[in-house]
């Protein structure tokens, strides 16, 4: 076998291994989305909420995420007492600060750009929620919205 063919075969094998590894990582971590955005033009995507890998908790909360052209709904089955715990179970948020001072800096991989005065607003049923996600107790059937806002 000449060097060229060997190189191509090794390249194909490397590509297949990488794709499989990525699929496995994705399957192990995918959130339970039921997006209504068609996931077009975004950097994120997800599986359906019927995902069997979605752990069954004793309560279900619905979180609607809105940013840029994206609007998606995530159903979370969780045992967490607070919204922060539920969101973190799905790797949906990143933030800074400790305890109740936790401040969301990114949702669904979308970072709020403070240079453009962007921030993540929590609302519950459309009403602005005055406590942070770490201080928000959740109950079965509740719906929250996480919306990227611009302007302080």
């Amino acid at each position, binding site marked *: 076998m000449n060097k060229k063919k060997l*190189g191509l075969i090794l390249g194909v094998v490397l590509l297949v291994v990488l*794709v499989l590894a990525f699929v496995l990582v994705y399957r192990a971590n995918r959130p339970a989305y039921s997006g209504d955005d068609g996931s*077009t033009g975004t950097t*994120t995507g997800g599986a359906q909420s019927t995902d069997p890998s979605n752990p069954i908790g004793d309560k279900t909360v619905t979180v609607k995420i809105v940013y840029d052209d994206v609007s998606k709904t995530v159903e979370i089955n969780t045992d967490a007492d607070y919204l922060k715990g539920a969101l973190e179970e799905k790797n949906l948020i*990143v933030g800074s600060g400790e305890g109740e001072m936790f401040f969301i800096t990114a949702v669904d991989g979308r970072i709020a*750009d403070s240079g*453009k005065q962007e921030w993540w607003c929590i609302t519950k049923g459309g009403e602005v929620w005055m406590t942070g996600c770490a201080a928000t107790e959740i109950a079965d059937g509740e719906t929250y919205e996480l919306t990227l806002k611009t302007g302080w």
Partner: protein
Amino acid sequence: MKVQRLDIYRLVLLSLLGALLFVSQVVLSWLPNIEIVSILLITYTRVYGLKTLYPLYIFVMMQGFFYGFGHWFLNYLYVWLPLVLVALVFRRMTSPIGWAIVNAIFGLMFGALCSILYLILGGPSMMIAYWISGIWFDLLHCGGNLLTALVLSVPLHKLLCRLNDQLSRL
């Protein structure tokens, strides 16, 4: 004087190639992570080597002017460089399958490369969250890049070589 004329021609050509990158991105922006910027960059690198950095950074700057200089712009400053460097290493390769593999692996790694910025901005947890949340689109990017390179690598290379020869004869 002839050398100067050639340089000007090539400068204009490289600028137009940068504009072509930008237009191709805008035209295909409605498709999730399906793009021909990568195969164009590979083709430019095969023909022009490191001079590809001119059209590349014209493209990056035009992206900034068009979409605004958000944090993603920092990604764009470095994320295409590995592709150019790899294409430079393999620039003598003629196999479209070989280029398809290079292009596909780049598409697959795009999110991981972008996530390096978030390692600096928000630490490992932000980096991993960003990368994992985008894997689905990296897989799409991978498939799209595989197909675009399979279909376009040979004709684009021929076209650019012919254009380059014509310019060299001026």
